[in-house]
């Protein structure tokens, strides 16, 4: 697996440069795989859209974020260029008074939520974009308090009031609305779902999320980077290790340091263990929503076995507190690895029986086939990631498309399924479970020797240099964007989780030809964490 060479990056830069009329304000090639451009504010949107449309570059939208740099705001857009396996950052400066830019979302719908979030939290206006509130609910007064600005005074946080959400729902004879949440009937996280129905048929569906929004990105400001690692592990319990990994890899990139091979292999093992736990939980939920109690209980049992292996390997069921900047805080014991190898072989055998059972139960297949259809085109436009995208025929997986650090140890066969229904998303997970079991077994068997921790050269943690960490979490690609300030404290930390991108997929998939009882099934076929999206 080779990184792009300096020559490749120069060629890429020359290609991208043509899309901007004025000369680039800055262009940096950060080996091995990150290109950073700075452009004039007036050219930002147009240039970005042209790059996105370039078939040769094959760009995937990653994230859009804003930074308050006191004297001005800066806006950063991230693409993954699949052609080169390179991350491309495009940034521009916006003045503090009247910060406006031309909206990207009319041409790149995937950017819509980020534009709304930046509008909510920074007061930066996407001209021609959607200005409806997203992250901050309607009781937050608009136009004066922007919590992510550096000069925001927490003492002036406005009062909590009850202001109902506004949903754009059709009205008319025979139509009524079904309201669900924010406190749900099962043991799941809070969110408000609203259906417009005639009889059983769903016409329209919308979700009001961000109930668990804690302002974690704000909490990180001015914190030592190791404290922010703890926060990163607590963004989400399901994806705790992936968040931890994305953050540490970003800091390690900044320190320009090589992590011991043994630590990288251990990280790969733990990342796949987390994927197994998450996929078993998803499969259990799909079977439960599809009314197949036995299969659901078995999958829940498999998940429990994985969590117990995690406890043995790392001392924590959710793999918190083992990963740190520079490697691992402690190594899994040899005994726990041997045990895991043995348990996984047995688990694999039981899982193939489970698979056989599920794929031969017609009453269950009848529920999952053709429910919750999402076309490949919609998945592309919304920028879906992970099993949700692969279930709609999108051949995207960061483990292959961004072969860096931990991903170099995971040469996976990307599983893609074309139908775009619940069955398809389930099949992707079933095959990924088998792939992950074989990857973990292979990695444990070929574990290199040496140390699993090497301190990073802290003097290299310079301020004002933005770095990224990209990890394929169980739910899809996960991006942490970090910029340090003085004294190695975090100046700005941005998290773009997979569920953040995929929630709009749930909305679209639910609105197809579905009836109300299928809504939980469609939802569970994505099984997104609210905490990951809300932060």
């Amino acid at each position, binding site marked *: 697996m080779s990184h792009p060479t300096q020559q490749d990056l120069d060629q890429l830069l020359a290609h991208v440069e043509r899309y901007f009329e004025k000369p680039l304000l800055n262009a940096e090639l950060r080996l091995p795989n990150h290109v950073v451009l700075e452009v004039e504010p007036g050219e930002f949107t147009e240039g970005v859209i042209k790059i996105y449309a370039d078939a040769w570059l094959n760009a995937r939208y990653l994230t859009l974020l804003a930074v308050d740099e006191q004297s001005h705001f800066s806006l950063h857009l991230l693409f993954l260029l699949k052609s080169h396996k390179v991350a491309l950052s495009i940034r521009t400066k916006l003045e503090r008074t009247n910060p406006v830019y031309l909206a990207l979302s009319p041409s790149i719908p995937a950017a819509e939520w980020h534009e709304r979030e930046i509008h909510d939290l920074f007061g930066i206006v996407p001209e021609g974009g959607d200005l409806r509130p997203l992250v901050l609910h309607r009781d937050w007064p608009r136009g004066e308090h922007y919590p992510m600005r550096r000069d925001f005074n927490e003492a002036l946080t406005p009062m909590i009031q009850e202001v109902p959400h506004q949903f754009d729902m059709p009205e008319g004879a025979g139509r009524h609305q079904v309201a669900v949440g924010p406190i749900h009937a099962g043991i799941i996280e809070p969110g408000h779902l609203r259906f417009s129905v005639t009889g059983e048929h769903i016409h329209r569906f919308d979700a009001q999320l961000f109930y668990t929004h804690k302002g974690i990105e704000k909490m990180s400001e001015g914190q030592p980077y190791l404290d922010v690692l703890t926060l990163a592990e*607590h963004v989400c*319990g399901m994806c705790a290790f992936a968040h931890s990994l994305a953050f540490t890899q970003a800091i390690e990139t900044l320190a320009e340091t090589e992590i011991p091979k043994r630590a990288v292999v251990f990280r790969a093992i733990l990342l796949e263990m987390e994927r197994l736990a998450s996929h078993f939980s998803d499969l259990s939920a799909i079977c439960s929503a599809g009314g197949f109690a036995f299969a659901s209980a078995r999958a829940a049992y498999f998940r429990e076995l994985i969590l117990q292996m995690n406890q043995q390997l790392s001392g924590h069921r959710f793999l918190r507190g083992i990963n740190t900047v520079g490697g691992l805080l402690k190594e899994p014991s040899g005994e726990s690895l041997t045990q895991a190898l043995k348990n996984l072989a047995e688990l694999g055998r039981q899982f193939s029986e489970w698979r056989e059972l599920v794929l031969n139960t017609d009453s269950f297949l009848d529920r999952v086939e053709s429910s919750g259809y999402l076309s490949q085109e919609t998945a592309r436009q919304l920028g879906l990631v992970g099993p949700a995208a692969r279930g709609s025929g999108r051949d995207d997986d960061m483990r292959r498309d961004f072969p860096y650090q931990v991903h170099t140890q995971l040469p996976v066969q990307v599983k893609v399924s074309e139908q775009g229904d619940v069955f398809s998303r389930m099949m992707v997970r079933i095959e990924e479970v088998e792939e992950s079991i074989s990857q973990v077994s292979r990695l444990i068997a070929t574990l290199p020797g040496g140390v699993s921790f090497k301190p990073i050269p802290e003097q290299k943690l310079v301020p004002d240099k933005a770095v990224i960490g990209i990890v394929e979490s169980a739910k899809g690609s996960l991006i942490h964007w970090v910029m340090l300030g003085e004294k190695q404290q975090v100046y700005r930390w941005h998290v773009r989780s997979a569920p953040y991108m995929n929630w709009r997929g749930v909305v679209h998939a639910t609105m197809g030809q579905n009836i109300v009882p299928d809504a939980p099934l469609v939802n569970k076929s994505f099984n997104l964490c609210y905490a990951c999206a809300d932060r």
Partner: protein
Amino acid sequence: MLKLFKMWLKAGQLTTSELQPDMGTATLELEKLNQLTRADRKALGRSLLIRHLDVGSNNAEEAELVALSSPYYDISRFGIDFTASPRHADVLAVTGPVTRQLKIAMERTYTAAPKPCLIVAIGDGACYGKPYGKSYACLGPVDQFLPVDVYIPGDPPSPAEILSGLLACKKLLGQEHLVPGTGAR
């Protein structure tokens, strides 16, 4: 169908018998249920219905609550079950630090629950607001807003620890002069 039955029979009992929830007084081995004291037995005899209430959690506590209902722990063998509505709840199991945007929903859920209703704070977020602290959107630990009776700290607490805390709730509810909201750890 025959295949399903075959797997069913082959699976056998998956539920653990090694769990040792702490009853506060003595460690209770599930294998030795017949050696319980009268008081323990009386407390265990009651059923307990739990309404889970996420007020800003990070999904780890939820995962462990779900695990408790998996066949491995099978919480219903202790007479404990999760209910869909707060109106049927003996206990509100609260997870996460209270966020600004869930405060109203939290208060409504508490109002909807019949009293006496015990409040259990599960996890470091609910108990202490850790590791988040406060922000424009995060208000702090649960006991600043609701009268918490039982604290189950942990990051997240393991299923066995949660079970111990819930069994403690049963004991509390078994007491004759219970005044909920007076607090117990």
